[in-house]
C-alpha cells in the first residue's frame, strides 16, 4: 500500500515565517515523493493547529505525519499525542526543526529557506520508513529519594511524607539543616532561623514515613523513572546511632581538637564543640555526635592512644571499628536538593582574605553572629575586641566575569541584614560597598528603605583593594578599603576595623558528580540544567529526576521552599499515576543475524544486552535498555537495530538532505 505523508509547516508567528519563505517551502514539499498533503498554519502547536493534523489523520487522508516547526525537544510530545488522538501510532510522526536550528540561527535569505527545504525533505524520507512502536508501561515505586537535607530537602521530604508517601532523605553532613542551620537571623523579617528551622528538622527526624540517612553519600543510581536502584555509602560515624542518646559526655572529655584551640577569634569560629568527637551544632538532627577521624587521637594512627570517649559513654555507643557501609534500596523518583557552597574569596588576592586579620567571609560572620556559636553571638575582631568600623563588600565572586557572571541573589539582602545586626549589637560604623542594590523579593525593598534610616553608609562602587598599608596616621593599624565612589566620582580610602566579604553562591564541588550519577547535566555556571528555564524549572531532562533549591541556581529561602514544594508535588503527581509510559525506542536483536559474538554485551552501559546460552544469541532486556544505540553501532553483523533510529531511517534522512542534488538514492521500506 502506498504511504501517504502529511506535511504541516508552522509559521510560528513570524519566528519561522519571518525568515523562511513559507509559500516556497509548501510548494517544494508538495513535490516530494509520497507526500499527499501539505498545509501551513500560523501556530501548529495551538489547539486549531493540532486539530488540523488530527482531523486529517482521522479522515484517513494520511498515515505518516511530518511537522516542520520548532525543536522536537520542545513539541515532539505535543504532536505525537495529536497523531495518536487521530488514531495513528504516535511513532509514525516525525519533526523537522526549522526554528531553533534554522530560522533563529541564520539570516534572512535564500540559504535559510533552502535549509528548511532540505530538513523537510529529510524528515519526509524518514517518515516514509517509520514503523509503529508500542509504548511500555511500568509501575512507579511510590518511594522517593531526596538528596540533601538543607531547607530544600527538608521541605520536599516533609511534603511527601505528610501525603503518606515513603521518603529516603540522604544528607552528606552529620546533621540535616544545611546552610540555614548556620544562620542566626533571616532577612528581611529577621526571623530567628533556628526557631523556624528546628521544628521542621525535628519533624523530619521523627516522621514515620522518612528514613533519614545522614553522613551518607550517593554512590550509584541505576534504573529509570519509576524504578531507580540507589546505592548509598553511609560513612563511618564511629558512634552507634541506635545506642547513643546524645548526652554529650563524650565531647566534654575529648582531648582531640577539630577546630584549633589556639588562634584568634575568627580562626576558632565553630557552631558545635571544637573537639574531635562533636555535634555539628546543638540542634542537630539526629542528635548524635560523630568522630572526626583525622584529628581523633585514637583513630588518626595505629597507636590507639586515648579512647576516652568510649570510657565516658555509659551506653557503649562508641565503636572505633565502624566502617563505611553500602546500603541499596529502590525508589521511583529522585529530588536533588543538594544545595550550594559559598565562593572561596582567597583567590581574589587583592581582598586579602587568608592574608589579613579581620577580613572574613559572610559565612564566618553568620557563625560569629549565631547565639550558639563560639563567640556567643558577639561580633568581635580577631583579637576579641569590639570593632568600631565595619565594611561589607558586595558581589565577591558574583557579577564578575573573572569568577561567576551571575548574580547570587541573596548577598545584597544578607549584607543589609548584617548592617542591621551590627547596628543592633555594636556601636560600629557600617559601610556597604555595592554595585547595585538588588532587593527584588517580598518585603526586600522595604527592608532596604528601613536600613537607609539606620545610619548605614552606602558607597556605590566595586572595591578595588583591601589593604593594611597605611598612608596616614588615621589609617595606622586599620584595614583600608580603596574604592571608587561612583556617586561622588572620586576614589576613596576608608579605614575600617573589619571587612566582611559578601561571598556569592556557587555550585557545590560535588554537584557535578551527583548530577552525573542521576544522569542530568550541569550548565556552564556549574548548576544543574532544568528541563525548561521557564516552564520546567523543577524537572530535568531525565524523567523522574527533579530539582529543588540552590542546586539549580542561587536562591533565597522563600524561593527554595517554593521550589521544594513544587518538586514534591511533581513527584506526587507521578506517584498518583501509579504507572508511567516509557520510551519505546529501544534496541532489538534480529536472532537470525546474530552471530553470538557477545560484543554488544560489553558495550551496553546498563547491562541490558545479555547472552542467551540456549539460543546462542544476544537478547535485549527492554526494561533496562535506554535506547542509546551504542550496541547497534557496534554490532559487526548488523543484527541489532535501534527502533525509531534504524540505520535505514538515518540513511533516508541523509538521502533527503541531498535530494536536491543531482545524485539520488532511495532507501526502500522493509518487505
Amino acid at each position, binding site marked *: 500500500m502506498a504511504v501517504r505523508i502529511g506535511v504541516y509547516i508552522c509559521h510560528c508567528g513570524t519566528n519561522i515565517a519571518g525568515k523562511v519563505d513559507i509559500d516556497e517551502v509548501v510548494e517544494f514539499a508538495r513535490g516530494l515523493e509520497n507526500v499527499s498533503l501539505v498545509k501551513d498554519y500560523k501556530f501548529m502547536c495551538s489547539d486549531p493547529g493540532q486539530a488540523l493534523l488530527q482531523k486529517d489523520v482521522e479522515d484517513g487522508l494520511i498515515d505518516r505525519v511530518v511537522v516542520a516547526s520548532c*525543536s*522536537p*525537544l*520542545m513539541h515532539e510530545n505535543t504532536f505525537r499525542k495529536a497523531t495518536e488522538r487521530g488514531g495513528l501510532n504516535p511513532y509514525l510522526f516525525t519533526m523537522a*526543526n526549522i*526554528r*531553533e*536550528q*534554522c530560522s*533563529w*540561527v*541564520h*539570516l534572512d535569505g535564500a*540559504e*535559510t529557506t*533552502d*535549509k528548511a527545504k*532540505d*530538513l523537510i525533505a*529529510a524528515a519526509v524520507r524518514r517518515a516514509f520508513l517509520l514503523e509503529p512502536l508500542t509504548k511500555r508501561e511500568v509501575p512507579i515505586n511510590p518511594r522517593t529519594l531526596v538528596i540533601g537535607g538543607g531547607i530544600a530537602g527538608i521541605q520536599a521530604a516533609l511534603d511527601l511524607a505528610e501525603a503518606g508517601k515513603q521518603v529516603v532523605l540522604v544528607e552528606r553532613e552529620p546533621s540535616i539543616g544545611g546552610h540555614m542551620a548556620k544562620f542566626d537571623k533571616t532577612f528581611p523579617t529577621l526571623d530567628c532561623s533556628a526557631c523556624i528551622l528546628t521544628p521542621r528538622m525535628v519533624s523530619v527526624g521523627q516522621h514515620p514515613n522518612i528514613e533519614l540517612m545522614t553522613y551518607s553519600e550517593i554512590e550509584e543510581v541505576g534504573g529509570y523513572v519509576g524504578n531507580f536502584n540507589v546505592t548509598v555509602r553511609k560513612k563511618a560515624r564511629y558512634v552507634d546511632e541506635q545506642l547513643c542518646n546524645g548526652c554529650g559526655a563524650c565531647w566534654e572529655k575529648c582531648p582531640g581538637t577539630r577546630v584549633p584551640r589556639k588562634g584568634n577569634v575568627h580562626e576558632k569560629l565553630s557552631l558545635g564543640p571544637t573537639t574531635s568527637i562533636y555535634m555539628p551544632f546543638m540542634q542537630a538532627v539526629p542528635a548524635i555526635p560523630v568522630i572526626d577521624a583525622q584529628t581523633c587521637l585514637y583513630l588518626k594512627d595505629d597507636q590507639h592512644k586515648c579512647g576516652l570517649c568510649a570510657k565516658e559513654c555509659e551506653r557503649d555507643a562508641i565503636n572505633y571499628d565502624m566502617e563505611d557501609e553500602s546500603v541499596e534500596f529502590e525508589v521511583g523518583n529522585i529530588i536533588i536538593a543538594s544545595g550550594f557552597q559559598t565562593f572561596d574569596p582567597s583567590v581574589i588576592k587583592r581582598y586579602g582574605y587568608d592574608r589579613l586579620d579581620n577580613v572574613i567571609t559572610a559565612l564566618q560572620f553568620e557563625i560569629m553572629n549565631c547565639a550558639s556559636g563560639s563567640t556567643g553571638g558577639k561580633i568581635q575582631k580577631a583579637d576579641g575586641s569590639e570593632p568600631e568600623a565595619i565594611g561589607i563588600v558586595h558581589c565577591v565572586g558574583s557579577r564578575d566575569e573573572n569568577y561567576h557572571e551571575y548574580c547570587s541573589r541573596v548577598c545584597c539582602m544578607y549584607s543589609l541584614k548584617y548592617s542591621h545586626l551590627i547596628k543592633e549589637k555594636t556601636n560600629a560604623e557600617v559601610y556597604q560597598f555595592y554595585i547595585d542594590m538588588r532587593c527584588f523579593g517580598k518585603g526586600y525593598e522595604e527592608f532596604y528603605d528601613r536600613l537607609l534610616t539606620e545610619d548605614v553608609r552606602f558607597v556605590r562602587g566595586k572595591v578595588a583593594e583591601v589593604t593594611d598599608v597605611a598612608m596616614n596616621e588615621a589609617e595606622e593599624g586599620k584595614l583600608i578599603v580603596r574604592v571608587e565612589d561612583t556617586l561622588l566620582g572620586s576614589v576613596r580610602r576608608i579605614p575600617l576595623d573589619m571587612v566582611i566579604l559578601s561571598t556569592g553562591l556557587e555550585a557545590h564541588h560535588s554537584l557535578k558528580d551527583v548530577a*552525573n550519577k542521576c*544522569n542530568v*547535566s*550541569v*550548565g*556552564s*555556571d556549574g548548576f544543574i*540544567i532544568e528541563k525548561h528555564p521557564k516552564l520546567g524549572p523543577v524537572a530535568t*531532562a*531525565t524523567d523522574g529526576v527533579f530539582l529543588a533549591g540552590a542546586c539549580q541556581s542561587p536562591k533565597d529561602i522563600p524561593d527554595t521552599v517554593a521550589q521544594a514544594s513544587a518538586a514534591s508535588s511533581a513527584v506526587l503527581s507521578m506517584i498518583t499515576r501509579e504507572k508511567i509510559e516509557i520510551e519505546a*525506542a529501544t534496541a532489538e536483536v534480529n536472532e537470525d543475524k546474530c552471530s553470538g559474538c557477545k560484543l554488544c554485551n560489553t*558495550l551496553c*552501559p*546498563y547491562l541490558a544486552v545479555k547472552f542467551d546460552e540456549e539460543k546462542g544469541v544476544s537478547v535485549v532486556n527492554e526494561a533496562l535498555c*535506554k*535506547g*542509546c*544505540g*551504542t550496541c*547497534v*553501532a*557496534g554490532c559487526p553483523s548488523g543484527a541489532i537495530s*535501534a527502533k525509531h*533510529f534504524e*540505520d535505514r531511517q*538515518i*540513511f533516508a*534522512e*541523509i*538521502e533527503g*538532505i*541531498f535530494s536536491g*542534488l543531482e*545524485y539520488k*538514492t532511495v532507501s526502500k521500506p522493509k518487505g
Partner: protein
Amino acid sequence: MTFEPKIVGFLCNWCSYTGADLAGTSRIKYSPNIRSIRVMCSGRIEPTFIVKALYEGADGVLIAGCHPGDCHYQEGNYKALRRYRMLRMILPGFGIEPERVRLEWVAASEGERFANVVDEFTDQIRDLGPLKVRDSLERILSEDAIPELEEAMEESGDANEA
C-alpha cells in the same frame, strides 16, 4: 560564485542537539551550511553514517556529543571517539581528507560554542573545496583507471606511514 560546502551534523540528543537548540533560543547566528540529524547518543553514530553522508554529497561531517564524563548514557561518547579515530585512519585510503570529518564535544549549555564550531568547520571545509566522492569513486572504479587507483592507494599508504 564561491563554493558553499554542504555539511551534515550528527548530534546527540542530550548535549549537542540541546546545545544547538540553545544557539537558536539565544538567536546566535552561524553559517547555514549545516543540516543536522538527531540521534539519541553519539555512540549510535556508525562510521557508515558518515561515509553515507560523504557519498551522498556532503563536503564535511560534524559529529557532536557530550563532553567526556557527561554522556547521558554514561560512556557512549567514548565509543564515538574510538569509531571516529578509526574512521579517520581509513578515509585517506579513499582519497578523502580526514579533516572533512570532525568530532566535537558540545554541552547542552554551549550554544555559542556550537555556533563557533559550525562556523569554523564550515570555513575549513570551504578552504578544502568540494569533495565529490561519488564522482571520484566512480571514476576510480571504472576499468581504465585501475593504475590510477593503485597509485592513489600507494600515496595514501605513504601518507599514513608519515
